[in-house]
């Protein structure tokens, strides 16, 4: 999939979720420039005439300091300074605190086609909103065939072949009081290069297809407490048909990893066969994951205890 593109135009045209309370003041012709980085630059040093390391390809953020500086210089100095400033291929300028620049700035920005906005937010607030919005916009995404359930606060992604019983297992977990995030189609988004968040496709959210029953609305049947919209994925549970020839983990000493969008997640394989109560295994796997996160690894601790005893001979 091609990388998503973001243009300055998109900040105000309502085509994205980004809402930074921007009002365009000048440079309308430059709106088609592409935003490539989510970093910001405070142009204080450049305004004072120091242009080494000038990050002109970032959004230029004029806070109270910058506007105060520009108020304190003469019109002549202002013009000279802006001539040099705008000679760089500046992405766009944003004035915060709802403080608008003077006419000289507006005229030059129009002449050079540098989009210039004013925002109601304070500078720090703007930076955090901007960074978050751009990060979210450029987050890597993918869809995966599986079910995502919140079990005791642990995001469990059930994977496995069609017909192995992912949906039935998810349904039984819901029945036990856990929460469905997505069934069959899980949209995954990578946030901050650290976490994966899963959600359902909007159109089929909180619905499931159960063979023999058809399509059901989980939210209507089990109530609002049985669903949630978004959940961080913590562990992967692979359901597979019991294979006599395969060795399944009997100790749990080695932690296996499953990689999605370059993020490693704890991974367990649960073999399915009639009479095995899979939901209870998944509940236990989720609790065990929490226990590990809180510093207790049952398998390792028992192993240490046994090592201690058997080595005393």
């Amino acid at each position, binding site marked *: 999939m091609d990388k998503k593109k973001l243009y300055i135009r998109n900040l105000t045209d309502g085509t994205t979720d980004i809402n930074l309370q921007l009002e365009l003041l000048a440079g309308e012709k430059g709106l088609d420039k592409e935003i490539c980085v989510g970093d910001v630059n405070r142009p204080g040093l450049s305004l004072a005439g120091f242009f080494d390391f000038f990050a002109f390809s970032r959004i230029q953020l004029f806070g109270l300091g910058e506007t105060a500086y520009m108020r304190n210089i003469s019109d002549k100095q202002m013009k000279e300074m802006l001539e040099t400033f705008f000679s760089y291929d500046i992405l766009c300028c944003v004035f915060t605190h709802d403080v608008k620049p003077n006419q000289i700035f507006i005229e030059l920005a129009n002449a050079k086609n540098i989009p210039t906005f004013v925002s109601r937010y304070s500078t720090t607030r703007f930076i955090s909103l901007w960074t978050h919005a751009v990060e979210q916009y450029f987050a890597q995404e993918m869809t995966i*065939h599986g079910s995502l359930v919140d079990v005791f606060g642990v995001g469990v992604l059930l994977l496995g072949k069609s017909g192995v019983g992912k949906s039935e297992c998810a349904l039984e977990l819901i029945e036990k009081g856990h929460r469905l995030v997505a069934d*069959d*189609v899980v949209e995954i988004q990578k946030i901050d290069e650290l976490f994966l968040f899963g959600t359902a496709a909007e159109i*089929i959210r909180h619905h499931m297809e159960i063979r023999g029953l058809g399509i059901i609305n989980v939210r209507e049947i089990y109530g609002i407490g049985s669903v949630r919209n978004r959940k961080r994925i913590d562990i992967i549970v692979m359901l597979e048909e019991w294979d006599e020839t395969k060795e399944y983990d009997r100790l749990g000493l080695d932690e296996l990893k499953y990689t999605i969008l370059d993020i490693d997640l704890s991974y367990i394989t649960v073999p399915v066969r009639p009479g095995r109560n899979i939901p209870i295994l998944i509940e236990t796997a989720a609790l065990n994951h929490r226990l590990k996160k809180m510093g207790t690894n049952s398998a390792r601790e028992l192993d240490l205890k046994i090592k201690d005893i058997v080595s005393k001979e």
Partner: protein
Amino acid sequence: MVEDIVYINSDAGVHARPAMMLVRTAMKYPCEVFFIKDDVEANAKSIMGVLALAITKGSKLIIRAHGGNEEEAVHELVSLIQNDFKEEDKIKV
């Protein structure tokens, strides 16, 4: 791997019944089948997956299959869509 492109003609788009017909057809074959619309991929053997694609009239759909009987699977799905989901042998319920 076999791939074909097809456009949806039926006015109502792919709602629950046509989705079921697509899934039923895909299920007949052992191969893995995927529908791809606007770069979004869905498992053709999953009703929810197909519904989530929100396939409207005029949508361009890529049908991709790999595995056993991939040729036949893609061919039958394409003709099902081209015939606006009119099956000759209706399954009685």
